[in-house]
């Protein structure tokens, strides 16, 4: 039953191993317990409490039959379920093995269904380590292998140190570099997942996380919706009103929203590791997520009204294959930086795109006549283009700013509705695979819109070609090796609306491509 008996076991650390390294292991034998921990705990709780309450079931064994009849029926149900589940779990545990050798990763199941899942290293998009609450208490962790669209593999559970070892090995191999499986030096704990070489970029204190959770409008709106009927009911003695109207649902919504932000983002740490950027967070379930920086399609800065007064912002990213922000499994979360000052935002952004100088982006307003179409958000609306990214600002109370690298653009659309046509405006939609769906530069001067869209296509093609010549997946290694990878030059001005002059009919002065189009072309 020893998991290590099946294979060669953990390799001796420190030694550069000969090429055919082959790991063939079972998962940790406590796996079925962790999967069923709720049932096991409930059963143990019952036994413990009945023993503590002076029901010494075990001492008078002659009355065992009588005692058994006093036991409530649900205990048998839970007990039977737990025993069945444990049996099935151990059957699954015994028949499951994972194999890592020089060329591939394989998860083999020889139980009732014969299954062998093979994942080539080059297909691995990212590998994350999650420590669910029960596993965390027992020193276990789960390795999630993400291969993009299809469902990847999940190794649950392994010893924490072994999980991080395997994660690091797989990540290194996925980046096309060679490595051995016996790489020492990484010591994950129940609180942290860091090694000596890691460089912590951003760490949020519990106070900041709590502030971020309470400083959102929707919490206060929900609290208001909760409080108003209650106060009214108390004033006018309408007890029905106080407890009707889905109060329980609202309370649950408030608690759920708070707990998602508090528990999910607690102890947030962004660090640069040899394998890439790593986010570690979570109060009960500790999740460790590696961000494939060169696969980030777009970044969104978000500022709710209250956060603007606090001078904070939040960063979301879109990575192909990651779920939404509400993804149940937070290891695929798109929340990149839950709460940060401008300096922290800049550090986090520079970690993804080292060359990006947010403070150098020159935002330009849309024409004054576009105010008719956007009376509220016109002050904040604007766009900026430099040689690497295009950035768009939108929103009134909840300000957003979306940054898309040219190399990640999929297509561009110019659109014009009847009102825009009357005002001589047009919108440009720079489409990428983002989940935000907000990368539209609305209500530009019509000739300007066309020039911008066409120039954007050219820039996208050039960046794409440059990327093919110099793949960023390999470039990331050299950046990571540079200890001064993050150079903080200036704090980006995330907070003031674009004050740049109204755009001329041309793309901005920063780009060499856009100095064209001498006014509207003659009649077609």
């Amino acid at each position: 039953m020893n998991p290590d008996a099946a294979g060669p076991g953990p390799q001796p650390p420190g030694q550069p191993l000969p090429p055919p390294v082959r790991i063939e292991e079972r998962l940790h034998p406590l796996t079925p317990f962790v999967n069923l921990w709720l049932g096991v705990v409930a059963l143990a709780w019952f036994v413990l409490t009945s023993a503590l309450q002076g029901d010494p079931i075990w001492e008078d064994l002659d009355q065992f039959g009588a005692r058994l009849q006093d036991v409530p029926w649900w205990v048998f149900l839970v007990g039977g379920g737990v025993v069945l589940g444990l049996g099935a779990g151990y059957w699954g545990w015994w028949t499951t093995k994972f194999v890592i050798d020089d060329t591939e990763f394989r998860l083999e199941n020889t139980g009732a269904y014969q299954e062998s899942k093979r994942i080539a290293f080059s297909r691995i998009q990212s590998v994350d380590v999650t420590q669910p609450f029960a596993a965390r208490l027992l020193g276990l962790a789960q390795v999630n292998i993400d291969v993009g669209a299809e469902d990847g593999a999940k190794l649950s559970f392994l010893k924490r140190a072994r999980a991080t070892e395997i994660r690091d090995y797989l990540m290194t191999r996925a980046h096309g570099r060679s490595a051995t499986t016996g790489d020492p030096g990484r010591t994950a704990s129940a609180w942290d997942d860091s090694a000596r070489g890691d460089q912590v970029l951003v760490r949020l204190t519990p106070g900041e996380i709590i502030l971020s959770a309470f400083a959102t409008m929707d919490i206060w709106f929900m609290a208001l919706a909760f409080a108003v009927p209650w106060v009214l009911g108390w004033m006018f003695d309408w007890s029905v009103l106080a407890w009707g109207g889905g109060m329980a649902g609202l309370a649950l919504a408030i608690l759920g929203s708070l707990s998602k932000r508090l528990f999910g983002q607690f102890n947030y740490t962004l660090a640069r590791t040899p394998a890439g950027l790593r986010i570690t967070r979570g109060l009960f379930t500790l999740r460790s997520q590696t961000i494939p920086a060169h696969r980030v399609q777009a970044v969104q800065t978000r500022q709710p009204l209250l956060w603007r007064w606090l001078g904070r912002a939040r960063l979301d990213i879109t990575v192909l294959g990651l779920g939404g922000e509400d993804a149940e499994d937070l290891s695929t979360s798109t929340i990149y930086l839950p709460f940060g000052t401008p300096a922290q935002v800049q550090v986090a952004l520079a970690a993804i795109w080292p060359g990006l100088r947010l403070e150098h982006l020159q935002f330009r307003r849309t024409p004054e006549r576009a105010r008719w179409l956007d009376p509220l958000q016109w002050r904040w609306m604007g766009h900026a283009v430099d040689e690497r990214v295009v950035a768009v600002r939108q929103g009134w109370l909840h300000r957003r700013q979306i940054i898309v690298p040219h190399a990640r653009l999929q297509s561009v659309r110019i659109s014009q509705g009847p009102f825009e046509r009357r005002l001589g405006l047009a919108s440009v939609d720079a489409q990428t695979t983002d989940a935000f769906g907000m990368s539209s530069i609305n209500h530009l001067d019509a000739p300007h819109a066309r020039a911008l869209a066409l120039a954007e296509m050219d820039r996208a093609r050039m960046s794409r070609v440059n990327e093919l010549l110099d793949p960023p997946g390999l470039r990331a290694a050299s950046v990571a090796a540079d200890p001064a990878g993050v150079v903080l030059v200036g704090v980006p001005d995330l907070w003031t609306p674009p004050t740049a002059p109204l755009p001329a009919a041309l793309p901005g002065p920063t780009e060499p491509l856009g100095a064209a189009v001498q006014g509207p072309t003659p009649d077609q």
Partner: protein
Amino acid sequence: MQSQSPEFMPPPEPRPEVAPPPAAPFVPDPALDGEPEGATEPFAPPSDAWRRVSPKLATVRRISMSIWAFIFFVPASVAAWFVIPPGEPVRWLAVVWLALGVAWWVWRWIRARRYVASYGWARREKDLCIVGGLWFRNLEIVPFGRMQVVKVSSGPLLRAFGLSNVELVTASAATNGVIPGLPADEAKALRDLIIELSDAEGSGL
């Protein structure tokens, strides 16, 4: 006709490939080529002219629109007229509904020709441009290098008129690259052209 800035249309670029591959050459119907009627400046063609979709698509749209209009308006109003007893003023709602349907049908019937005429596609060096729409105009620019899938499809009605839709799929769900109602051989040639060029351009993500 269209004086483009040198930035976007480099003059030294000869454009021999604008014509599709020799295997199935386009025979652009001169009636389909032409000026974009009433196109405002942002929707001008990137090359000399838009290749318009087949005008037969207007007939197809008229037929399918008539079927839907019939299903949506006629049974409801006829049933209402006979179920509601005479003398009730509510009964006239059936007539109003039918009149609404007729008005909508006439409007769509008249607009169909101009709507179809607004659709077109053109090649701009390494991008494919699709234009369309009357009230809400769109000009979609899709690089050949970004196209993941090219679909050529046609329903029974379209097939009866010898037409097909060509749809371009990129990794972005927001991209809406549908060219409706191309003549079937032109659709196939366009598909081959796109596949050839997207292979040459590479890079999907």
